[in-house]
């Protein structure tokens, strides 16, 4: 057990290092002159020869490994970054400075985290709230008209691209009908704007995410439940004369939930890493929205930092899922 966890932790760490190197290299070798964007911005597009000063000060004339070393050191100890003539302090954990605002990327990342986290938590909650009961209900009525109708309508729904579903939800409810309560979408701080406004702003995003995402969970739950209900111990429970509720929820669902929980862990990681479509459509100014904005502004440090952050988020959630799964199901460790 312990050895397995250590092994997974080491490989997870390795992947994080690899991904950060890959992203760093991408933004090093990718642009023809990495400092061009900031130079153009600072000199209002009259950069010309001054590009060399920016390249030199940002370290793009040094070898890549020493600059990667500085970058890693900046994450733990902070560093100073020079744009042209001005030097800015970037405290640990430093992921670079935004070309746009000259503020440390980490600060803004942290300030945008609540929006993304709100979307992720609410959406993920609805995945389970809709998905599991419907899946259980379908499994209990396996083969009936209700089951077939549920399965085929959910197959139909999940065959539509998510963003178009979300877009239509937003266009009709918010723009066209101006439905009460959800007409003011976006992220509002639950503290300064009040929890009701926060709830109303995110409600539509949650519902769109939840309805669309729950189709997958219904399928998983139904499949796992059908399998669990055909086990011998369920027959034993029936033979003992236990009430149907106890059989389904206590004996069946518990066994069926293990694979569902692992998939949920990975999905939650994906949501936390940035729900780009949801944030773009429902105007929620979280991490996904911000990175999309940064792409438009050519704000390379922000794009690089959000990419690294999201990748790390995904890797960590995968790692947690693996470890939790190995605790829940000891057979995994053996293979």
């Amino acid at each position, binding site marked *: 057990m312990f050895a397995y966890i250590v092994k997974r932790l080491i490989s997870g760490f390795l*992947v994080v290092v690899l991904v950060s190197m890959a992203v760093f290299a991408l933004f090093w070798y*990718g642009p023809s002159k990495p400092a061009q964007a900031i130079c153009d911005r600072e000199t209002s597009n009259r950069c010309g020869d001054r590009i060399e000063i920016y390249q030199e000060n940002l370290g793009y004339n040094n070898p890549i490994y020493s600059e990667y070393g500085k970058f890693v050191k900046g994450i733990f100890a902070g560093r100073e970054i020079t744009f042209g003539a001005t030097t800015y302090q970037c405290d640990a954990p430093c992921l670079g400075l935004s070309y746009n605002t000259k503020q440390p990327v980490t600060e803004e990342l942290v300030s945008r985290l609540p929006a993304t986290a709100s979307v992720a938590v609410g959406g993920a909650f609805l995945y389970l709230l809709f998905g599991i009961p419907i899946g259980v209900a379908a499994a209990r009525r396996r083969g009936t008209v209700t089951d077939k109708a549920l399965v085929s309508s959910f197959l139909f729904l999940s*065959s539509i691209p998510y963003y*178009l579903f979300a877009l239509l939800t937003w266009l009709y409810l918010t723009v066209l009908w101006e439905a009460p309560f959800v007409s003011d979408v976006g992220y509002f701080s639950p503290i300064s704007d009040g929890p009701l406004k926060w709830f109303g702003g995110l409600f539509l995003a949650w519902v769109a995410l939840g309805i669309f995402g729950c189709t997958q969970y219904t399928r998983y739950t139904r499949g796992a439940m059908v399998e669990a209900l055909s086990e011998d111990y369920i027959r034993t429970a029936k033979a003992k004369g236990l009430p149907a509720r106890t059989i389904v929820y206590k004996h069946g669902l518990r066994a069926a939930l293990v694979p569902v929980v692992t998939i949920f862990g990975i999905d939650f990681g994906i949501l936390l890493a940035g729900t780009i479509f949801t944030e*773009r459509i429902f105007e929620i100014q979280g991490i996904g929205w911000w990175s999309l904005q940064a792409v438009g502004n050519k704000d390379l440090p922000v794009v*690089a930092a959000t990419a690294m952050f999201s990748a790390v988020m995904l890797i960590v959630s995968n790692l947690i899922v693996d470890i939790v799964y190995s605790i829940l199901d000891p057979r995994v460790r053996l293979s």
Partner: protein
Amino acid sequence: MSQPTAPETLGSLSDETPVDPNSKQAKAIAGRSPMQIALGRLVRDKIAMVCAAVIVFFLVVAIFAPLICKLFGVSTDTVFASQYLDMLGGGMPLKGPPNNGFDPEHPFGIAPQSADDNLAYWVYGCRTSLTIAASATLFASVVGIAVGLLAGFLGGIVDKVLSFFIDLFLTIPFLLAALTIAPILNDRFSLNDNYALIQKFSLVAVLAIFGWMGMARLIRGEVLSLREREFVQAARVLGMPTSRVLIKELMPNLAAPIIISVSLMLPAFVAAEAGLAFLGIGVTSGASWGQTISKAVKYFEEYPLYLWEPLIGVVLLVLSLNLLGDAIRDALDPKTRR
């Protein structure tokens, strides 16, 4: 089981028409390969056939895009916009929808602000969508098959390394990758004459690089079990070179998983292409459904048709690809009986 049917015999489980075992007629025994059985099941599936018809329609539109444009007398050329648009009234078209009736010169109407012909952009958007999805599927399949075959067949350290890469790529969603390289491509190539082409190539590359893992996994699993089968071992004993064993012995047995993965990839790539264009990080120059959708959102209240045209294109294509894929998966699965 409420209806009083005949007792379930082995014959009632199969697809073949029941034959009276006592009949005097000589029975013609025709062997059918698993693929033929699957195809037969598929042809009898009504939903699958409707989906296939829809897909054929889109294929025809994509292949004959220039011809269709010529037929309707429309083109994607930029026009002198103020001739066609009510520039003072928000840039809405003077002819055709939304404010006037049907305009035979522009059957789908024209776009606000730019006066682009919607039909021409729709037809070429279909072409972009299918070309990108098809080429991404092709590349991803080649990589997936190669990696899956090697990892499954060679095993050992090769399998460990390749599996590590499969897992590594699985953790990173293509959306993130596309988002990350978009500004770099823009920086490097935005002044290039072939920017539109480069954008398409890089999109195909991103989709393929982050889309091969599913197939690799499926193939690897299949090869792991096939490797131990007698015919493969016989081939090895006979001294066949590994490459020949892989291609001649294993590949034909991998048709089903390959078809299944392709049926999963195609709709995903069509949706991804349109989605990225919608976010403004996919095909931004040239015709693309997603790009039209993102432009049309702000005119939705006055000009809903402008949004619906590309939207229905994407939804219909992705939906039929998905449903057909599902039917193919069912047809190939010997366990499902319909």
